[in-house]
């Protein structure tokens, strides 16, 4: 034993023990894992949250020096970005100007025209300011940030923003800093507005940039009440010179003194901008994430065979994500600060760590034997994959370690994260995922048990009979033959389209969800466009609309609400408080002038309303100190980005603002007037708005309340309209619903109750063997050879052939034998059958019976039957000669032929393992060497030989007998019209199409007959309402016609082996044989068109319909779809373990049933299996399609209706009282929406009422 092998064994054993541990104590282990994840993620709390908002740092102006690049010793609270010089220094000159005293002769434009006009002289002053001291002469030109071109996309701003020079912005830029242009501008507001972007904008607008204060505060408006204009002149300085700036400040202060200004001037704020992700980086990032999601999708899609796929996929993703978090957390714990952009490297980390191990684990555990205990399954699965998991992990670690030695810092950091992530991922896989997997597997087993147990409980244990046909026992029935299920729920058949739409809407809560999403989006938009919230907005609106009548008591000044929007950490803590005195001062009173006569009598508060000259008071509050805070935080980045300077990961320093107060005399205002200014109409009197502000708020809130109530009512009505009133009451009132009887859909909608009652047609004395129908009539033939013709609508027996029992007494005697005979036949089966049944009594066995693996412990069944059966024929042969007319060989053949589909409309019914229907597969297998002695030469009609095949067209019954004789009977009169004895080999299958009959014989030959009538075709009368059925109504042969049946062609060796299936449609005859081939003949000239090869077993089922679709199923479990026109194979699928017993097609799908009791539904065009239905063992294999979406299957004493679209069981109709009864082996769907099936010696006619309604 090498070291490697020993190591491998050790690892495997360790994993095994670990798996046992995990599966034994799932809850403690999950708790432990969660705790360790949380513990490892704890250090992450210390990491700053990612965000794009700017951060600030405040220093004192006095001892300011440009920070050096190298971090110094005592950093203190100094942030790590505060290194090196800033991009720029921002110096703002905040100008507040007002015309005072305000004169009633002034027009609204005067509020801002002359104050704005003063900007040019100020600019002049600033530009020309020169500071001269010992070291030299400094001017703004030398200090300011020199900018070059604007970005090429900003051509339209070229006239407004400075280029090739100092970056100095002010409102004067609108007029190219030229006083003449300003003076000649007839409409200042229009000039300002024409540069504004249309629609919603997020970043700073040009107006914000130039004015330097938010639009609301500029006061540049015709309806301004404060009559104070505020704007800034923003200087962007490239280098800092304290002396120049202080001299400029002193100069400006000297020129325009601000009396009551107490702004602090000793702090400068450094603002650091985070990296923002631009479009160019966003696209690759999004691509990476898309690839990541595709990877996760494709990986988790492979999880299969578990109880909850989604749950496990989620667990896998959680495993990877939390291992990444743990890795970052651990790295932080040990002192490593992540420098990489987390969002960028995250997808790569996930991809490197990968989901593979998790999937491998799941696959391995799932593929362990099902019957093992869950613990052992987990342990085995783990230990199976232990070696490969360890190997993979070692390889990945090696690769990452190699990456670590590239010595590139970024890659090293990535590798470190990856290594820690890999290890923690391994830990989580072993503890977290394995435990989740064990819980899942246990749940699956529990679900399996739950599903099987009710059937167990409902079955009397010692009953030797066959299995219950359905998983659920039949509910208590009011009458023996009627079943009322709570809800038949043919919902997709019966419901009209509009109701279905409404149901769909209600079921998916589409409307509610839509409204919810809409609301969320609306709120999102609201919050986005107005981050301060609705309240501030409303307050501002209200206070703006209503002048402050009572000296600040009425409402807050507008700037108060907004000032709190950007409460800077560096701001003065008293800033909000210090605002309050401002309104208390006589500041806003000028506006009160016009409403003095309103306000004065209302309250006795003394105020200055009587003061005739209005002096717009210019006040300086703390909010002016850092006025830039009220701007968008994108203000500075967007200003710099116009010149292709990015502020990402850099900072700017904002210097204390220089206040400038301008008082202009009315005379000056009038002088600077433009001739057109007076044409503006005086501001409209806001009489409506001059109500009490409280009243306005009340009105607003009442309005809002009413709107809210209305909205709620509307939603409620909508809800009531869309959802039915009996929401969840009708359908599932009876508690837990068992699987199997699925009475209504998952949401409790129950369509009206309706009943399906089978109509039993009695009369046959023995089991029914052949069944044929043409829609109006129904012919059946029993083992006794009696043919009865029924009316398919009413169920009346029309004719009995033979009319009087000539050999009836004989038959009675035969009956005893017939009854005993199956016992003989079943002799072989009995022991096996008993074993089988006893096994069924044991719950665990029962649980797994559908699986073929279980038959391994009953291996004696098949050989027993075979050998016994082999010994049977001689005894039959011995018995036959003494008794004339009793043909045991024929009986055997007959028994075989039960499983031959006699008519195209019929679906083949193939053996079920239950004893009453015998062991047909074996019988069929032995068919090859059974050459029954066929009694010959009996007169016409031939009562002795049995009817093996029967067909009904018009009122002619074609019966093929074991003697090889073909008889044509009149269905109404019961008289023999014609017979043909050309062949000697028994007719095993018949096809009757138009006026041709095709007969397949036991020796593999195929005979084509033509039915001739000596009457011209024009005289044929048609019966039946035209258009009612899909197939053309059959011609009716009157009794006067002489009908002859001639053999036109006989294909002697159509197949090497017996023909098992014969179908005819659309002018084609298709035969399937045991020689693995399918042949297609043309009906007219009986010419063989194709021999279709492709099956590796005998053909057992064929389907062909008018649309020339041909499907064939074989003993190999394969289903082939063929193109009848070209003979090519369209698709080839394997669906069943064992024979395909029956095949039906609809326009969209192919339905097959097999010996494995599985019904598979395939997509017809693609050949993909849509779903499959596992039925109980022993269910019949007969299938029928009633409509495009309604499938009917025969079971033991019942028929079941299935919804083809969803695979739901809609209803099970029990045919008789004794539910242990015979299986339904033949099932014919009549075109009046009824089905006929055989039920022992009775026929059962089941109407499907909903389908009738639909057809009408």
């Amino acid at each position, binding site marked *: 034993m090498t070291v490697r092998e020993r190591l491998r064994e050790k690892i495997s054993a360790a994993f095994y023990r670990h798996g046992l541990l995990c599966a034994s104590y799932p809850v403690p282990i999950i708790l432990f894992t969660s705790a360790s994840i949380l513990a490892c993620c704890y250090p992450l709390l210390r990491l700053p949250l990612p965000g794009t908002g700017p951060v600030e740092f405040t220093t004192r102006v006095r001892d300011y020096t440009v920070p050096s690049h190298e971090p110094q010793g005592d950093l203190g609270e100094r942030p790590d970005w505060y290194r090196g010089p800033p991009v720029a220094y921002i110096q703002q000159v905040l100008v507040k100007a007002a015309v005072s005293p305000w004169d009633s002769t002034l027009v609204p434009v005067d509020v801002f025209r002359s104050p704005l006009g003063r900007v040019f002289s100020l600019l002049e002053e600033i530009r020309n300011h020169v500071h001269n001291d010992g070291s030299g002469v400094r001017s703004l030109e030398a200090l300011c940030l020199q900018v070059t071109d604007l*970005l*090429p*996309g*900003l051509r339209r701003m070229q006239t407004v923003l400075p280029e090739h020079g100092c970056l100095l912005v002010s409102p004067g830029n609108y007029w190219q800093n030229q006083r003449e242009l300003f003076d000649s501008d007839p409409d200042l507001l229009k000039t300002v507005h024409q540069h504004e972007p249309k629609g919603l904008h997020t970043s700073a607008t040009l107006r914000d940039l130039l004015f330097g204060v938010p639009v609301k505060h500029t006061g540049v408006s015709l309806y301004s009440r404060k009559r104070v204009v505020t704007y800034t002149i923003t200087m962007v300085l490239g280098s800092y010179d304290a002396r120049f700036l202080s001299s400029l400040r002193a100069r400006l202060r000297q020129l325009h003194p601000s009396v009551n200004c107490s702004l602090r001037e000793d702090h400068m704020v450094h603002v650091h901008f985070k990296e*923002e992700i*631009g*479009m*160019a980086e966003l*696209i*690759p990032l999004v*691509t*990476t994430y898309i*690839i*990541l999601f*595709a*990877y996760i999708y*494709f*990986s988790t899609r*492979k999880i299969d065979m578990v109880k909850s796929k989604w749950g496990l996929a989620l667990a896998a993703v959680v495993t990877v994500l939390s291992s990444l978090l743990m890795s970052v957390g651990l790295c932080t714990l040990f002192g490593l600060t992540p420098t990489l952009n987390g969002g*960028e490297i995250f*997808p*790569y980390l996930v*991809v*490197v760590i*990968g989901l593979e191990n998790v999937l491998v684990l799941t696959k391995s555990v799932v593929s362990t034997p099902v019957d093992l205990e869950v613990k052992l399954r987990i342990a085995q699965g783990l230990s199976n994959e232990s070696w490969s998991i360890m190997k993979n992990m070692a390889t990945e670690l090696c690769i990452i370690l*190699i*990456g670590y030695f*590239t*010595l*590139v810092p*970024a*890659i090293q950091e990535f590798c470190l994260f990856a290594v820690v992530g890999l290890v923690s991922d391994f830990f989580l896989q072993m503890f977290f995922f394995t435990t989740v997997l064990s819980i899942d597997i246990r749940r699956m087993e529990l679900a399996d048990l739950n599903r099987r147990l009710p059937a167990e409980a409902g079955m009397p244990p010692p009953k030797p009979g066959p299995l219950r046909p359905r998983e659920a026992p039949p509910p208590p029935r009011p009458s023996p033959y009627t079943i009322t299920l709570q809800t038949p729920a043919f919902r997709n058949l019966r419901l009209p389209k509009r109701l279905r739409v409404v149901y769909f809407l209600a079921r998916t809560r589409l409307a509610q969800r839509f409204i919810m999403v809409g609301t969320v989006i609306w709120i999102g938009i609201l919050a986005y466009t107005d981050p301060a919230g609705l309240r501030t907005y409303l307050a501002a609106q209200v206070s703006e609309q209503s002048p402050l009548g009572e000296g600040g008591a009425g409402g807050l000044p507008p700037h108060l609400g907004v000032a709190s929007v950007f409460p800077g950490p560096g701001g003065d803590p008293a800033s909000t408080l210090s605002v309050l005195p401002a309104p208390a001062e006589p500041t806003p009173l000028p506006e009160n002038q016009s409403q003095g006569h309103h306000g004065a009598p209302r309250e006795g508060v003394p105020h200055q309303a009587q003061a005739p000259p209005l002096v717009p008071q210019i006040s300086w509050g703390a909010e002016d100190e850092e006025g830039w805070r009220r701007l968008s935080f994108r203000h500075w*980045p*967007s200003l710099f*980005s116009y010149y*292709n300077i*990015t502020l*990402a990961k850099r900072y700017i320093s904002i210097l204390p603002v220089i206040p400038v107060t301008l008082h202009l005399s009315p005379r000056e205002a009038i002088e600077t007037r433009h001739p057109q200014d007076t044409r503006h109409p005086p501001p409209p009197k806001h009489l409506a708005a001059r109500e009490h502000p409280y009243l306005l708020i009340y009105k607003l809130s009442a309005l809002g309340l009413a709107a809210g109530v209305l909205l709620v009512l509307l939603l409620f009505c909508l809800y009531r309209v869309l959802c039915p009133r009996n929401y969840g009451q009708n359908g599932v009132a009876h508690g837990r619903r068992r699987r199997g009887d699925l009475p209504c859909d998952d949401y409790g909608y129950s369509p009206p109750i309706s009943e399906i009652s089978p109509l039993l047609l009695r009369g046959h004395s023995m089991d029914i063997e052949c069944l044929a129908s043409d829609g109006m009539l129904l012919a059946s033939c029993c083992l006794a050879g009696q043919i009865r013709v029924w009316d398919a609508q009413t169920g009346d027996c029309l004719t009995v052939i033979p009319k009087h029992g000539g050999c009836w007494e004989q038959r009675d005697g035969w009956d005893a034998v017939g009854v005993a005979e199956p016992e003989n036949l079943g002799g072989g089966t009995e022991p096996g059958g008993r074993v089988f049944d006893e096994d069924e009594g044991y719950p665990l066995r029962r649980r797994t019976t559908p699986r073929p693996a279980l038959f391994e412990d009953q291996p004696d069944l098949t050989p027993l039957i075979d050998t016994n059966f082999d010994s049977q024929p001689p005894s039959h042969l011995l018995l036959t000669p003494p008794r004339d007319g009793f043909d045991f060989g024929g009986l055997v053949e007959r028994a075989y032929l039960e499983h031959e589909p006699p008519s195209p409309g019929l679906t083949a019914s193939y053996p079920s393992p239950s004893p009453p229907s015998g062991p047909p597969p074996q019988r069929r297998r032995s068919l090859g060497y059974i050459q029954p002695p066929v009694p010959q030469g009996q007169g016409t009609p031939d009562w002795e030989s049995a009817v093996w095949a029967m067909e009904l067209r018009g009122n002619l019954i074609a019966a093929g007998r074991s003697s090889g004789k073909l008889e044509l009977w009149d269905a109404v009169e019961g008289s023999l019209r014609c017979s043909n004895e050309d062949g000697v080999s028994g007719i095993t299958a018949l096809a009757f199409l138009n006026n041709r009959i095709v007969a397949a014989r036991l020796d593999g030959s195929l005979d084509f007959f033509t039915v001739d009538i000596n009457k011209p075709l024009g005289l044929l009368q048609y019966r039946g309402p035209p258009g009612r059925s899909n197939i053309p109504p059959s011609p009716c042969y009157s009794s006067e016609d002489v009908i002859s049946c001639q053999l036109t062609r006989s294909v002697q060796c159509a197949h090497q082996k017996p023909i098992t299936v014969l179908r005819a449609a659309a002018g084609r005859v298709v035969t399937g044989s045991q020689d693995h081939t399918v042949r297609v003949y043309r009906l007219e000239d009986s*010419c*063989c*068109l*194709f*021999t*279709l*090869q*492709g099956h590796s077993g005998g053909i057992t089922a064929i389907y062909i319909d008018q649309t020339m679709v041909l499907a064939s199923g074989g003993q190999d479990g394969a289903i*082939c779809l063929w*193109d009848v026109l*070209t*003979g*090519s*194979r*369209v*698709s*080839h699928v394997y669906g069943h373990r064992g024979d395909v017993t029956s095949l039906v097609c609809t326009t969209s799908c192919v339905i097959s049933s097999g010996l494995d009791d599985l019904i598979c539904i395939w*997509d017809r*065009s*693609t*050949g*993909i299996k849509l779903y499959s239905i596992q039925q109980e063992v022993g269910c019949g294999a007969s299938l029928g399609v009633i409509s495009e979406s309604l499938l009917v299957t025969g079971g033991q004493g019942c028929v079941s209706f299935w919804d083809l679209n969803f695979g739901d069981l809609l209803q099970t109709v029990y045919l008789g009282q004794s539910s242990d009864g015979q299986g339904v082996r033949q099932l014919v769907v009549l075109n009046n929406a009824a089905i006929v099936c055989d039920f022992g010696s009775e026929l059962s006619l089941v109407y499907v009422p909903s389908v009738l309604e639909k057809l009408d």
Partner: protein
Amino acid sequence: QSTVRSGSGQTNPSRGTYIAVITNRSTTLVIRGFMLFSIGVFLALVLNLLQVQRNVTLFPPDVISSIFSSAWWVPPCCGTASAIIGLLYPCIDCRLGEPHKFKREWSSVMRCVAVFVGINHASAKVDFANNVQLSLTLAALSIGLWWTFDRSRSGFGLGVVIALLATLSTQLLVYNGVFQYTSPDFLYIRSWLPCIFFAGVITMGNIGRQLALYECKLMSEKTHQD
């Protein structure tokens, strides 16, 4: 009597809805080629954007033009090359008679693409001390890519050959002045170029093989039947 051998009209089962379209091999070939072409064009555009460095400002007005900042013929060339490579790989596998069995799943292919984008990302964003280090790191990463997702000798050989040819042709284009490096380094070529080419070839080959997998399955089924 006409006997028709079965299996002549078989189609790809997973794309059965297009049964009428995808009936012969040439059609599937064209469709595959087109898919590979579009993947190549898309990757070329995105990776080119990765190389556009930080000097692009926030939401610049010409972000669309920066996607197409290189010459217009580069993405179609990349697309054509990737189509050829993607078709060549399965073809060579078939010729050599050693069908590629290693990790044939879409999730693995996605992983491969992600790693390829990651290599590009690293070459564009990570600051290396010198170009030799850059080249060596990228070479190691590319070979790691091959080892993780391909491990076939034919894949390696083809990758190396195509990478060398592509580098050579780019060099020729540069000499003729059709194309220009912004800053040539390490022996006057972009040192990451061959490695990126190699990784790209491996990735496209992986995608091509995965796309061709269905057809190969079909072929083997057919031969099995015969």
